[in-house]
């Protein structure tokens, strides 16, 4: 407890940055993933190919390597300067977007074939079939797995600790500079993560029950 109280500044600073990383990455990943997901289910071959290529390469690359590229590779390209925090957000977003895209895609796949056919059979055009019938149902099916994606994102923010972002995963380094035992700080960090994940999981269950489409 002393470790926590004496170094409260470190913990608050660390988790504040964790939450910043988390929320910005989540939003960007959602938008980017939505676009990629749309590409993935598009009837246009080249769009599907681009979507598939993006998902397959990024998903098969460790997040750590993507962050490595962003933190050390990007600055070498003499493009506009970006802070390490923002580079970490970019890496997390690019990585998480692939999972968002796949979740959206499988969410659409959970809507039974018959739903789209029935919509077409009463004369709804493509746009309305999507907006009135498919997406509202897919959206509900997507919520639980999407929350899992966000839970994973939350945990993945710790990887930024290796790339000069002072977030929860880096608290241990600062603590050991202050001569605190690593284990105590790490256990506190783990505990806070377990709580945060618990909150998200609770939310997930709540939303799932609220939105479930009875079939």
């Amino acid at each position, binding site marked *: 407890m002393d470790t926590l109280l004496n170094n409260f500044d470190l913990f608050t600073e660390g988790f504040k940055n964790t939450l910043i990383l988390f929320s910005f990455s989540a939003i960007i990943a959602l938008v980017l993933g939505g676009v990629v997901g749309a590409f993935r289910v598009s009837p246009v071959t080249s769009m599907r190919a681009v979507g598939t290529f993006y998902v397959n390469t990024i998903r098969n690359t460790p997040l750590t390597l993507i962050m490595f590229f962003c933190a050390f590779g990007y600055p070498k390209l003499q493009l506009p300067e970006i802070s390490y925090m923002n580079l970490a957000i970019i890496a997390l977003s690019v990585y998480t977007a692939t999972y968002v895209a796949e979740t959206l895609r499988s969410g659409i796949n959970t809507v*039974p074939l*018959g*739903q789209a*056919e*029935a*919509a*077409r*059979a*009463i*004369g*709804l*055009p493509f746009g*309305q079939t999507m907006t*009135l*019938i498919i997406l*509202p*149902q897919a959206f*509900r099916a997507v919520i639980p797995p999407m929350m899992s994606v966000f839970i994973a994102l939350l945990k993945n923010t710790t990887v930024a600790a290796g790339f000069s972002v002072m977030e929860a995963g880096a608290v241990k380094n600062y603590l050991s500079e202050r001569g605190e035992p690593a284990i105590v700080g790490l256990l506190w960090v783990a505990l806070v993560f377990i709580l945060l994940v618990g909150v998200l999981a609770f939310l997930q269950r709540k939303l799932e029950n609220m939105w479930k*489409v*009875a*079939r």
Partner: protein
Amino acid sequence: MASRGYRVGMTDSESAPGAAQLNAFETTSNPILADIGKPLVVVSGVEKFYGEFHALKNINLTVTKGEVVVVIGPSGSGKSTLCRTINRLETISAGEILIDGKKLPEEGKALATLRADVGMVFQSFNLFAHKSILENVALGPVKVRKRQRADAEMAARMLLDRVGVGEQADKMPAQLSGGQQQRVAIARALAMKPKVMLFDEPTSALDPEMINEVLDVMVELAAEGMTMIVVTHEMGFARRAADRVVFMAEGEIIEEAEPEAFFTNPQSDRAKDFLSKLLTN
């Protein structure tokens, strides 16, 4: 795979594209009887391939206004496929389909408009799971026919009453029994005031006691003069309501006849075999 121009079966009349723009079925009144007998659905020389697999082989079929055609045949014979090509849920590989004298459009608004004129009832009901019963029925009229929501809902309630599920209007589909869901699905199709109704095994996913409540609605619809194409195994329905029975096997129309003639005296061996299997018990 162009249509080779010869016909199988008995309905060889070529379509006579008519000016009949009246809705064949009004939910509140009986159909205009004047048009009865004009060809409404004309399927000619239709071929369908799934990759290598030849699912429909030179299908020719004409359904006239007010006619009720029952399609039977063993599993996998292409009954569903035929039914679904008629509102282009499946594309065809060759041949032509005319609805009320007009060629089936290939896409876009024209196709959507045509589909609105062709009601379809599926084996698995396919009610929109996230919308209430009332919304299911009113959705088409509001979004496709651009009717006022209030009007559409009023009409929907009347239709639901007619098929006997008026009480359930505000429930969700999952809360209804299969028989009730299927009757809602019929109401949903009727709400579009279609010229022809397609039924693809509408009772085969139902518990036995519920089969009749759905068949009763269909019999009534037939009696009121609706043009219907019905894929079903219910021989009782075929006997009571069909004008014609079409027997399919392996993607071909093997036999067409009046129900009594077909059931008592099938011509082909395959039909005999099929019927004997069905009727022994």
